[in-house]
């Protein structure tokens, strides 16, 4: 079974035109010693009916947030996705197009990305944004490498509140070119002690809200960084918070980066998501990734085109600002669709609902006698100390409740700490039930 259209007669006619007797002859350049003789050992082919049965059976083995009561967050968030997002993102003209190298027949993708770049600038309060990166983790890594190029320094101060997986990716990316990471601990309130930033750093990286849910003092971080000649990088895992919190740009940060999954991307077991990266205009030449610019066509009509491509690998090869070739085009489309559909008032409303739910949960936890280890304000997730956490989690699971992320997974000192996320998809009854299970 395959999607090839050739009839046997066509194959014969085409071989005749080429001047060979068989399909096999087309591979004459492959040395006989390399030619595979046996068929690949793969499971038998499935038609659509069998394929959907196969995947359906495996899908049924996973807990999904549409049927479970989920408090999982920690860098991937369950949010409302309007039906129109799927409907429009499924259009074949978007889905099956390629990188918009041929601008004349790619204006749809190009204008959409220009809109995406604009929306990212509006949310982050910065001046230039690229067309998206693989995910929030690689966006942080690329931001740090960008700062290293700009400052010609190799040390990066990293908040202990940065998502541990993002930090791990940053370490992997930085290792090859000699980037050294220095961790800045959190204070009792759950915020980064930015004063601990060493000298000679390229950048200070602070995530807000941080991995433990706490909203950071980005203005203070920017001030500290600048006093030491470092750039301030704000990372955001929960992009919805940008609709409500003062923007990184407004607070003095030089680079804002993070994960846009909250805007219309399904959880999908961690990908594909969309990393974003925004900066000041003066740093645009060191920005990695694709950029779309406005120009005109031969008739003087407004049109959009890939620009400043000399930064990129297909021209500058080993001297490029990054090795990235694609962006996350279809994900950027979903983000743009989501933001356009929800709009100015909708996004604010959703953000406020998230704050309200987190506040409700916070009071419910406190009332139930659960300790909240950090006092800093939170947006939609928070750390709760739950005595005997493992046993509690097992009970929750038995009830179909995905109670949150046990932070002991990341560091033993957080053994009884649970990261609980509440979004606009969470109901009061779900929160009440969770609290009951955690203290019962």
């Amino acid at each position, binding site marked *: 079974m395959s999607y090839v259209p050739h009839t046997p007669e066509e194959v014969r006619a085409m071989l005749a035109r080429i001047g060979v007797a068989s399909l096999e002859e087309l591979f004459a350049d492959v040395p006989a010693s390399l030619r595979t003789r046996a068929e690949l050992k793969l499971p038998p082919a499935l038609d659509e009916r069998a394929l959907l049965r196969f995947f359906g059976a495996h899908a049924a083995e996973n807990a999904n947030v549409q049927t479970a009561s989920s408090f999982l967050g920690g860098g991937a968030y369950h949010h409302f996705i309007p039906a129109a997002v799927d409907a429009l993102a499924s259009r074949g003209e978007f889905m099956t197009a390629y990188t918009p190298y041929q601008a004349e027949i790619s204006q749809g993708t190009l*204008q959409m990305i220009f809109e995406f770049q604009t929306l990212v600038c509006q949310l982050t309060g910065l001046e230039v944004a690229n067309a998206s990166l693989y995910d929030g983790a690689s966006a942080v890594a690329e931001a740090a490498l960008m700062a290293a190029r700009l400052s010609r320094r190799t040390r990066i101060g990293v908040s202990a509140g940065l998502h541990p997986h993002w930090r791990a990716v940053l370490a992997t990316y930085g290792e090859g070119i000699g980037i050294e990471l220095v961790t800045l601990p959190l204070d009792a309130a759950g915020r980064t002690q930015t004063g601990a930033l060493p000298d000679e750093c390229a950048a200070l990286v602070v995530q807000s809200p941080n991995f433990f849910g706490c909203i950071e003092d980005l203005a203070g971080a920017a001030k500290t960084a600048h006093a030491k000649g470092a750039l301030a990088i704000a990372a955001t895992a929960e992009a919805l918070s940008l609709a409500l919190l003062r923007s990184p740009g407004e607070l003095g940060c030089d680079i804002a980066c993070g994960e846009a999954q909250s805007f219309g991307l399904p959880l999908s077991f961690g990908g594909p998501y969309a990393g974003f990266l925004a900066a000041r205009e003066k740093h645009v030449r060191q920005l990695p990734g694709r950029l779309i610019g406005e120009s005109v066509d031969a008739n003087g009509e407004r049109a959009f085109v890939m620009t400043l491509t000399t930064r990129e690998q297909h021209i500058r090869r080993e001297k490029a600002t990054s090795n990235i070739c694609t962006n996350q085009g279809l994900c950027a489309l979903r983000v743009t669709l989501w933001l356009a559909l929800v709009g100015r008032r909708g996004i604010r409303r959703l953000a406020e609902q998230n704050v309200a739910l987190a506040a409700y949960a916070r009071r419910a936890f406190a009332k139930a006698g659960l300790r909240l280890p950090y006092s800093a304000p939170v947006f939609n997730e928070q750390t709760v100390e739950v005595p005997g956490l493992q046993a509690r989690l097992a009970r929750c699971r038995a009830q179909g409740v995905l109670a949150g992320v046990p932070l002991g997974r990341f560091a033993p000192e957080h053994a009884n700490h649970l990261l609980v996320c509440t979004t606009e998809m969470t109901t009061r009854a779900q929160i009440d039930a969770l609290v009951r299970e955690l203290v019962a």
Partner: protein
Amino acid sequence: MTAPGRSGLVFREALLFESSRPGRAGVPIGDVDVPGVDPARELGADAVREDVPDFPELGELDVVRHFTRLSQWNYGIDSGFFPLGSCTMKYNPKVNEVVARLPGLAAVHPLAEEADVQGLLALACELEAALAEISGLDRVTLQPAAGAQGEFVGVRMIQAYHRARGDTARNKVIIPDTAHGTNPASAALNGLEVVELRSGGDGVVHPDALARLADSQTAALMLTNPNTLGLFESHVEKLAEVIHAAGGLVYLDGANMNALLGVAKPGHMGVDVMHFNLHKTFSTPHGGGGPGSGPVAVRNALAPFLPTPVIRREGDRYRLDDEFPHSIGRVHAWYGNAGIWLRALAYIRTLGAAGLAEVTSRAALNANYILESLRDVYDAPHARRVMHECVLTDRRQNEHGVTTADIAKRLMDYGYHPPTIYFPLVVAGALMIEPTECESQETLDGFIETMRTIAREAETEPALVTGAPSRPIVRRLDEVRAARKPRLRWTRSD
């Protein structure tokens, strides 16, 4: 035969921000069932922003029309023939979209407990096994989010391998001049120096040329096979011997795997590490430039260096293993682009072994058919059989002042997506044509006839070609203006 392109009604469409009307409501958003709070009181007045200035305010229908119209300005595989060389623009089966959207796959949180994601881990393992079988290598990671990230991972693992053996002086990567730009960029991102290897006059790399460059500082050879000229690197076994004798490893850029399915396995060629581009070979949507997926396959000797976490099967249970002392670490926040690798698995399961072999044989049939049908009017730099794609040039058309760019633009007027142009860099005025296996003889005949028409136009009416395109929504772009005064976002002009 009539070319498929004709003009039809398309719509003007302003930017979202220009169509926005203050006070217009978007998609309805109801209340939540907890008491509202004042964010300024809850979070501190200093923490909260006023508003997002100039953010769009549009109705749902406004947005639906906006993006429907934008989509109509695009050209996709679903629209027509898309022979973009090196990109493998094959049909993206619709059932794979249905698979990726099953709630039991799409609504699964990456931090759910292992016990709650057994189905996904089983599917991941099945894909890893299939890719290992196709590559002839031993172990696979699905973590890289795209081919370029796969290259980064593969090269990093090669470095880790050398270092673990105490072989710390290997800081160079040899890369042929036909390579994709990501190869040198990925090597540089790992702090390695790039040494360029010139390919021979016959378009392939020769072992003696390689032997002159390979030494005790060589970490790896990064090879694309078939190369970007569509030619099988026929000396590949010898190349691998040369590199291995110098103590280096062989990396294969798997961009052109569509030419090898069921024909030859990289593992048998002496390849130690390779990446796949699932969005090319295994038909996941290109999406206007991503998301891709770039799994990496390695020999057992490199398995200790795989990125974390690794999926392990223990009896009938699956486990995510982070305890991996020699791992190069993480490269993705989670487990790669799961929604994409699931589509690729759906494709592999639909085709099976026979179907995949058919893919490669028909891809070669189509590429050679185009080459044989056009080489009398367009120059072909290498008079050889090709695998899955062929390269022609504009040398003859240059005499009439017509260039490859012009030919590409003229193809649009006739309703075709142009081939890849000016790549590989080693061929002046290259037109790199990859028809894929999915196109029928009549589609190819239509394209061939159009290419011949354009060659005639170049001789008789070159202005038609140099002035193209005239049918798409816009004409040629002023790229110089875009680059001199970059305008990268919309701002309110009043």
